[in-house]
């Protein structure tokens, strides 16, 4: 249970400022996801919260208590690393119990109870005697999560925990993390990823970072429906939002308009834009049609089911009413 407050947090490595003044409130028990392109400072921000990195300027508090000078264990955090970071010479049980054995005066019985409870939650009870090298990638990551649960942290930190797993396992583990959040409602979780799908599916709220600054904070749907900038609009949602500017956007009274592929329809006539189909991707459940309407990049249109439009065909497209995002010259929305 911890409410995390960041007040104008800055971090420099030598002369390079990586975090340039981040103020953010993370609510108690919330699942907050930091997302952004590589180099935006999201991992650094997580490490600042963990205490592995010192804060250059600003103030961080957990439940009102300033934690700037506290070590990670004093802050009551647990962290899951991208590379699992298990102790290779210890069994799964020892890995999970290590943190507790360092606390003075912890009775062995209680340690055992807590390790077994965490192991059951993650279904790794059968592997407790094995060494990490005898486990698969997915099992290792579960042990790493289990090690964090055992410590019963106030704040649970994840640093891109799924990026070393293959696609199928990633989905399975993602669901498991979502379940974990359900069962640990009191624990504040902060999760770093560059994958916007993970962000959308896991988060209570998402914090989009760019160049060491917060771009926008909000629920997944807020970011999807009301992006505060062209950057957020382009980053959230897959495929990327289509941006059309210049003459082609004149009809909307804005320098640039953005429309998501799922909010465009192909019409037989009277479209807003028209052009030739240059490529189409067929996924079975839906398909993406790339249309060259004369903008810098082709416009992507999403259609249900398999597409009937062949490459080379001339099509007319139009946005669904009320689903057009208008942006001014600075990339800010016009509402």
């Amino acid at each position, binding site marked *: 249970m911890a409410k995390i407050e960041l007040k104008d947090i800055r971090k420099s490595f030598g002369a390079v400022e990586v975090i340039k003044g981040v103020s953010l409130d993370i609510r108690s028990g919330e699942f907050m996801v930091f997302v952004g392109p590589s180099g935006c400072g999201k991992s650094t921000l997580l490490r600042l919260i*963990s205490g*592995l990195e010192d804060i250059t300027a600003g103030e961080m508090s957990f439940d009102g208590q300033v934690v700037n000078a506290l*070590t*990670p*264990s004093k802050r009551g*955090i*647990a*962290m899951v*690393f*991208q*590379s*699992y*970071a*298990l*102790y*290779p*010479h210890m069994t799964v049980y020892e890995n999970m119990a*290590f*943190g507790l054995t*360092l*606390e003075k005066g912890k009775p062995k019985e209680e340690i055992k109870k807590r390790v077994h409870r965490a192991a059951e939650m993650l279904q790794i009870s059968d592997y407790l005697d094995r060494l990490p090298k005898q486990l698969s990638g997915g099992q290792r990551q579960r042990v790493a999560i289990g*090690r964090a649960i055992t*410590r019963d942290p106030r704040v649970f930190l994840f640093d891109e925990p799924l990026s070393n797993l293959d696609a199928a396992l990633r989905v399975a583990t993602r669901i498991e993390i979502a379940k974990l959040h359900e069962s640990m409602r009191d624990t504040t979780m902060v999760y770093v990823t560059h994958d916007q799908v993970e962000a959308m599916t896991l988060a209570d709220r998402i914090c989009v970072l760019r160049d060491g600054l917060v771009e926008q904070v909000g629920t997944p749907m807020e970011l999807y429906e009301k992006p505060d900038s062209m950057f957020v609009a382009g980053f959230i949602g897959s495929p990327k939002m289509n941006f059309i500017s210049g003459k082609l956007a004149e009809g909307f009274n804005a320098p640039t308009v953005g429309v998501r592929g799922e909010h465009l329809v192909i019409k037989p006539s009277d479209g807003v834009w028209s052009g030739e189909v240059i490529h189409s991707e067929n996924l079975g459940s839906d398909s993406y049609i790339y249309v060259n309407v004369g903008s810098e990049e082709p416009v992507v249109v999403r259609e249900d089911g398999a597409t009937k439009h062949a490459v080379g065909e001339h099509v007319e497209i139009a946005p669904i009413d009320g689903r057009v995002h208008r942006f001014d010259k600075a990339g800010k929305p016009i509402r």
Partner: protein
Amino acid sequence: MAWAYTKKAAFYLLVLVIVVVSVFPFYYAILTSFKSGTDLFRITYWPTSISFDNYLSVLNQGSFPRNVLNSIFVSTLVVVLALFLAVTASFALSRVRFRGRGLLLMTILAVSMFPQIAVLAGLFEVIRGLGIYNTPWALIFSYTIFTLPFTVWVLTTFMRDLPIEIEEAAIVDGATPWVIIRRVFMPLMWPALVTTGLLAFIAAWNEFLFALTFTSSNTTRTVPVAIALLSGGSQYEIPWGNIMAASVIVTVPLVALVLIFQRKIVSGLTAGGVKG
């Protein structure tokens, strides 16, 4: 076909030559140590008679057993001390970021460039000044100085290759630097510790110059000096039999140690070179 056999034959011939060249001196020492009287000066390549007289005489003679104990004491302590200092130093050198770290590492390496003889006089003064002349501590002190650069260098390289996340996970778990070294890093570093420890042990065990200079009485000498100073009945008699028996006695522990740890050494020497 014939060519393949020739190649194979040539290969094993070469192996044979290498083995003979490296093993023969020791073999001849063993052979000689079993001889007695004038047999010593007759050249034979196979044992003709086996007598343990030389061993008995060297072990019952004066201070030799004491010298062996001195050697064991000095070498063991040098290893323990050097490894302790090197592990802690290399943790700092590989994991703690501080100004002048690279320079310090180069300086440590540079120390090992000085030949023993160049620092002998200065070191003698230091040892006199510390009041440990003619005690085992003089040798432990000087050997540790000469072992540390190598030990620190190897362990620093090895520790640098340990993943940083493991250390960070331990920090998050609430481990202090000492706990990280003892319970996380040391178990991962066994091959490197065994290798450097063994090399330090061998160096201390074989060392002659310092041992000759910093000790002066029979009871404080170590084995290499004691063997060199073994004397016979008169000035003109060199007790070859005793010398060879003593040499064999002091070689056996080294051979045993290397055999025990050989697997670890091999993995230790290659670890750090290639990742994985």
